[in-house]
């Protein structure tokens, strides 16, 4: 099954080598970056981490501008709060606060960059197919994929409910207490409507053999290879080393 299936659904998209990688490799890099960012302190180490695991791959994937823009967008509100809390209100000297704040902001930017890079270069359907290829049970990949796919669907349903309730005189402007009562009139049908669809989808999946023990036939094969397999284990190894050295306090990070 080495050939990519003639399925228009899950072909590798985009020409850059980063897109060609097995989605699992991209996921391991993203998870590894966030884990490392959580463990590492210090501006030098965090900048090195960001450069190596976010900026370089983003450039390769020709997504550098977008990754930087979205990461800043995501991290900005947080960054402002960090500066406010640590610099203006810190009990220590403002310089101490600033140093701590910079470290935290850099950590947030690195994590945001890793998440955005993954999101921008991996379609959920690709990730689903890759996880199944690597042996993750289909019941788990179903929940992971649909957990993301349900977000825009739920937001769309909330918009439709808002229209229906406003047409019945519900006032979403007005003072807080009316708005509070309005919140229930909007939240309840959104949730209950989604729950009704749960029953239909349950029956639809059961009748199409979703509960058959064993793995479903793979319709798409990621471009995996020994080098990527090595790289994935490598990331794990580096992470463990980082954790141990951090505890032992050997490196400045």
């Amino acid at each position: 099954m080495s050939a990519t299936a003639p399925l228009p659904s899950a072909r590798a998209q985009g020409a850059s080598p980063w897109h060609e990688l097995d989605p699992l490799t991209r996921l391991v890099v993203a998870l590894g970056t966030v884990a490392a960012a959580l463990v590492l302190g210090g501006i030098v180490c965090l900048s090195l981490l960001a450069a190596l695991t976010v900026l370089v791959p983003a450039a390769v994937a020709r997504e550098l501008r977008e990754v930087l823009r979205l990461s800043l967008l995501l991290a900005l509100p947080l960054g402002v709060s960090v500066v406010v809390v640590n610099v203006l209100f810190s009990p220590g000297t403002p310089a101490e606060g600033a140093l701590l704040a910079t470290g935290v902001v850099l950590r947030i930017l690195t994590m945001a960059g890793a998440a955005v890079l993954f999101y921008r270069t991996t379609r959920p359907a690709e990730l689903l197919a890759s996880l199944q290829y690597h042996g993750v049970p289909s019941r788990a990949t179903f929940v992971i994929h649909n957990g993301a796919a349900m977000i825009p669907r739920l937001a769309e349903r909330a918009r439709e409910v808002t229209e229906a309730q406003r047409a019945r005189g519900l006032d979403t402007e007005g003072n807080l207490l009316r708005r509070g009562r309005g919140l229930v009139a909007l939240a309840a049908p959104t949730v209950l409507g989604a729950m009704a669809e749960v029953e239909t989808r349950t029956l639809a999946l059961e009748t199409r053999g979703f509960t058959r023990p064993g793995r479903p036939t793979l319709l798409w094969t990621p471009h995996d290879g020994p080098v990527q397999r090595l790289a994935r284990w490598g990331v794990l190894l580096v992470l463990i080393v980082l954790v141990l050295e951090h505890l032992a306090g050997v490196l400045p990070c």
Partner: protein
Amino acid sequence: MTEVRLEAVDFTYPDGTRALDGVDLVVPAGSALALVGANGSGKTTLARHLNGLLRPSSGRVAVDGIDAAERTVAQLARSVGLCFQRPDRQIFGRTVRDEIEFGPRHQGVSSEDAFGRVKALASRLGLGEDLGAHPDDLGDTRRKLLTIASVLAMETPVFVLDEPTTGLDARGVDRIEHIVRELVEAGRTVIGISHDMRFVAETFERVVVLDRGRIVLDGTTEEVFAEDRWPALRGAGLEPPEAAVIGTRLGLGSTPTEAAIVGALTSRAARR
């Protein structure tokens, strides 16, 4: 009395699709009309302009002489009651009674008056014994009737019913036809949006046909469903009601309803 007027209304969705293209329509107070068109013809978009949920890209919508742009949706909801197509986008009450009372209570109607309206409406719609029932336990027909009851309870001068007969069984459709006739007799303005041609022909006097955001036909059911209009109807993705087809096959002229066929055949038999 409340009159609904659209003057040169254009509307384009944010993603660029042009849904309404220069729509002029006057719905005199106390009259009833059916708005028909295939999927994507702009029926539902037009309905959402009547209560301010959508504002025209250009042109003017006036309810009772006042430009809709000057009033919030909540204010417009006092004169235009819009009932949506999908019950599960609206129902959230724990019991049928709570659901119907939501609209009036929100308008400040006292609980006794509201309950009076609920009981009257429920019996008219065949939900008399279900007041305490949980909406999920009603079948599709009664859930649909519940959404209609919850809009009727607000007793607005204008009613817009979006696809009221979808998913209903025969008895349900009869009930809706009956209610629309009662409303018109009570002097309310009723706009029914539907692709169910039999329901449209049996229930409404006037039919407006929309095609790709433009009104292509506007007249009585006899005029709109007459054989010479069929090309225009089919161009708009619609089929004439079966009664009209059968009537034409029997050479009876324009017979949009079965009653019309029976009438035409009776007069033809009498003439011989």
